[in-house]
């Protein structure tokens, strides 16, 4: 047979065919790559959604944790307050001082202001907590009474009847008018007597 098609045309056709083959292969590869990308994207979206779900759960749980921490802190605060109240309740020195002072005041005397500075012992053991006589204390009493005699009687009662014992020192006293008469305004300081060694 005779072949009258020029070589250039045959080459062009072969090139076109090769090109279309490569184009087809490229399209297949692109299709696979696209599918892989789509799968990866979908996978990533799924992971993101799972992460968001977990993050939400974590946030919810963290709120609960925060609340529990706040609750624990409040409970600790309350416990410390309760402990302080318990300490105050257990403070027998203070109670006995208040009782002595209130018992020492008679109908001629009137208490205006009292300041008690009572300190526990430096040791924190259980025995020291119960035995509070070790700690120093200072009681400042401000009030009024009829006259100097009633003042003297009051100081006597405070000094004699007090348990624990305390030194009663008159700091100031002066007469002043009160309503339609004269009263004696005083300020007394009661201190724990100093221990004397044997």
């Amino acid at each position, binding site marked *: *047979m*005779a*072949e*009258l*098609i*020029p070589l250039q*045309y045959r080459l062009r*056709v072969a090139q076109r*065919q090769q090109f*279309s*083959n490569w184009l*087809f*292969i490229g399209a297949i590869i692109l299709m696979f790559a696209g599918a892989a990308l789509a799968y990866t994207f979908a996978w990533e979206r799924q992971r993101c959604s799972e992460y968001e779900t977990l993050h939400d759960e974590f946030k919810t749980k963290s709120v609960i944790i925060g609340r529990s921490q706040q609750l624990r802190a409040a409970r600790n605060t309350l416990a410390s307050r309760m402990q302080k109240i318990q300490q105050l309740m257990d403070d027998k020195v203070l109670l006995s001082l208040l009782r002595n002072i209130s018992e020492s005041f008679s109908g001629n005397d009137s208490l205006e202001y009292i300041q008690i500075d009572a300190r526990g012992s430096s040791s924190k053991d259980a025995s020291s907590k119960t035995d509070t006589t070790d700690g120093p204390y200072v009681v400042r009493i401000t009030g009024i009474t009829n006259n100097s005699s009633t003042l003297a009687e009051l100081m006597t009662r405070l000094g004699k009847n007090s348990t624990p014992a305390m030194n009663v020192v008159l700091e100031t006293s002066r007469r002043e008018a009160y309503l339609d008469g004269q009263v004696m305004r005083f300020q007394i300081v009661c201190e724990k007597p100093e221990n004397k060694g044997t």
Partner: protein
Amino acid sequence: MLQKKPDNTLAIDLGPEAVRVIDVKIRKGQTSINSFASQSIEAGTPETLPERHLSALASLLTTQRFKTHQCIAAMPTSLVVTRTVALDHNKPQTAEEQIRWTLQNCLPFDAKDLVFDFWPISENLPTARTWEVLVVATQASVVHRYLRGMEKMKLTCAHLDVAPCAMASLIALTAANPDAMIGTVALSENVGFFAITERQRVLFWRPFDLPSAGKGGQNIHAHLDRVGDEISKCVSHMVGSMHIDNMSELLVYGHGSEDVVVTEYLKNRFHLPVRSPSPFETLPPAGMPADVQNALQHSVATGYCTAVGLAIQQSGVIGHG
């Protein structure tokens, strides 16, 4: 999908008066015909023949709705120049250069616009000084016009041949003795050619005109002497130049080939067996659907000789060139 060699091919005969198309399926060397169709070309000058061919082909593709995009085609002999060229072993030029040098003196067109193919028609003996080849040449611009036109129709032309070479493959399967030298006469309404083939190889062909021939079998009777004279000229040339005169039979195809008067005339004039077989006889029965067989009268079938030859070429019966 990856493009492999397609099974379906359009075998297109760009004949002098009509375009004939066969949609063939070639699988494992077996050729089967899906459909066939033809379309007459419009009248016009020889310069516009490619455009008229392409117009008729486009009309055929539109009306018949062929889905095949690969084609093989045969150019008309009127657009092809054929020469026997003696190549000299002693010349420093290559065979192509010697052929080009020889053809430029006899071409009716510019030698730069030349595309050709050739094959040996004599034995290429190392002891002989020359050896002869048959050259088929045509204008490259004409070939490009055909190829561009087919590309516009989304057809990829895998092979462009000439009718005598296409028919050589058909004759090899049709002839009683395929190894013998066989004469072939192909006739259309206005032109024809006589070719001599041997073992699927065209040794020589000569186109001729039938100027006043028209439609109808009776008109060919008036030109039988002209046809006979042309064949005689060819035979004389062969005897004189190629020293061969042992033609075994004469096969007649085309317009008027079914006419007993024509075959009897040729038989009596050349004293050779003359046959007018249908080109479709070479195909296996399984390759011919029933509707195709029923539609193929001999007068129609014989016109498809070139197209069938092209289809047989594609199925693996390789010729020369």
